């Protein structure tokens, strides 16, 4: 047993007490593993298949499903690289939400301030990295489920291009918008984990190959305004302004962003309801109440609306194609507010009548509709809690985004404070 694995396992009770842990997993003997991640402890999200265990997705409705016969592709890759899996993390039930509060595992509390939420749906994974228990953890991102908790907890979150990383063995929420990604304590670690996960999977028909971008190429940066400045808390705006200045970014607008956000929201609601329609009929009493009611109502969304929402995506994509003619990378805030209080899940976004539960994806959902790669880099704020900035590139531009994130951490004090010193 390596010291790192022993130290992480010793903190499992703390992870459970704070609502971060779904289930502990018996680790392999770290002395038997080799590879680039050899001996590093890590957590998976409770949404990834782990051989011999049921994929519960933080829902009693799935708890009686049969155990997985094999690891999901991402879990197998990380184990194959020597990473030592020690547990799965709490999340929003079925990955549908932004608060990581479940009837099975409780509320995931923010390690930066336990009276606050850590966001979701991959909230437990962000928290165990932010708390320093493990250096990295797996997550998924459909509407912002990696980016939102990464920003609220102050860690690096990586959502690669749609289809880049295999989804084999991952419980589906919204088939057309689900992404696999992860959290990391440092940018170097993020790059290391990305290199392990970025591999061809013959079992994933949705996986796509991309030409590599040039990380050394000049990078002209645009700051998305308009929709991406609506309802933003002053401490977040201040931090985003400082980071954008470090990039020398010019403020621009993508006029379809508000409609694209609503379209993404509609697609995810409709697809999630259809994904779980049979379980809603046969195991209705086992769903978390809030999720059950929202999914049931979303069954009323007509198929024609999904098509209309996809058409918005096509138009929005053309808008971004034009922006990428002028800019190599776009940046935007990740979240409109700092981590909200944990005890008030129905609270409104400050200064609005938008429920926080729905509002935390305000700035991530438009980008989800496009499937573009995003790295969210944590930023320190004057309010003491972290926030994040989304670095957004054209499809397949992950290498360029990693390089840009490194420049930001080197050249911007509040990024270095939040991400450069762990």
């Amino acid at each position, binding site marked *: 047993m390596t010291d790192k694995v022993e130290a992480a396992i010793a903190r499992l009770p703390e992870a459970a007490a704070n609502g971060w842990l779904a289930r502990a997993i018996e680790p392999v003997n770290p002395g038997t593993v080799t590879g680039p991640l050899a001996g590093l402890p890590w957590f998976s999200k409770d949404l990834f298949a782990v051989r011999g265990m049921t994929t519960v997705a933080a829902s009693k409705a799935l708890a009686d499903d049969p155990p997985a016969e094999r690891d999901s592709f991402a879990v197998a890759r990380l184990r194959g690289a020597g990473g030592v899996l020690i547990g799965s993390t709490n999340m929003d039930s079925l990955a549908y939400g932004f608060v990581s509060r479940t009837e099975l595992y409780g509320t995931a509390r923010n390690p930066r301030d336990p009276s606050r939420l850590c966001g979701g749906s991959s909230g437990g994974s962000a928290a165990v990295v932010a708390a320093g228990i493990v250096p990295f953890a797996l997550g998924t991102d459909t509407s912002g489920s990696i980016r939102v908790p990464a920003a609220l907890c102050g860690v690096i979150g990586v959502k690669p291009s749609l289809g880049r990383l295999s989804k084999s063995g991952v419980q589906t929420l919204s088939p057309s918008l689900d992404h696999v990604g992860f959290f990391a304590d440092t940018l170097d670690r993020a790059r290391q984990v990305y290199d392990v996960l970025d591999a061809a999977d013959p079992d994933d028909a949705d996986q796509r190959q991309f030409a590599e971008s040039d990380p050394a190429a000049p990078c002209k940066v645009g700051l998305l305004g308009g929709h991406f400045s609506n309802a933003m808390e002053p401490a977040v705006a201040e931090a985003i302004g400082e980071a954008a200045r470090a990039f020398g970014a010019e403020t621009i607008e993508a006029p379809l962003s*508000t*409609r694209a*956000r*609503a*379209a993404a*929201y*509609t697609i995810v*609601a409709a697809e999630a309801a259809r994904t779980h329609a049979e379980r809603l009929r046969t195991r209705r009493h086992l769903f978390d*109440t*809030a999720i059950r*009611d*929202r999914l*049931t*109502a979303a*069954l*009323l*969304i*007509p198929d*024609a*609306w999904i098509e*209309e*929402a996809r058409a918005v995506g096509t138009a929005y994509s053309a808008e971004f194609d034009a922006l990428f003619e002028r800019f190599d990378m776009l940046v935007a805030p990740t979240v409109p507010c700092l981590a909200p209080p944990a005890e008030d899940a*129905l609270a409104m976004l400050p200064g609005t*009548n*938008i*429920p926080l*539960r*729905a509002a935390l994806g305000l700035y991530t959902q438009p980008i989800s509709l496009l499937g573009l790669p995003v790295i969210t880099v944590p930023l320190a704020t004057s309010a003491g809690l972290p926030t994040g900035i989304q670095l957004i590139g054209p499809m397949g531009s992950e290498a360029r985004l990693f390089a840009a994130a490194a420049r930001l951490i080197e050249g911007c004090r509040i990024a270095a404070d939040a991400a450069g010193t762990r």
Partner: protein
Amino acid sequence: MDMPLPDTAEALRARLTEQGVALPLEDAEAVWRDWQVILTFRDAMRADEAAAPRP
């Protein structure tokens, strides 16, 4: 385009009741609050339809 979604939390509750799902009004109102984003999408589609040239 067919847009059969209800216009109020009470109407949403009634539609779900028709489908065999009985929600307390308070729960229907909670869903309704989450639905405001979806309703903006519906309203935008309605506006597009209204603005489209008529044959």
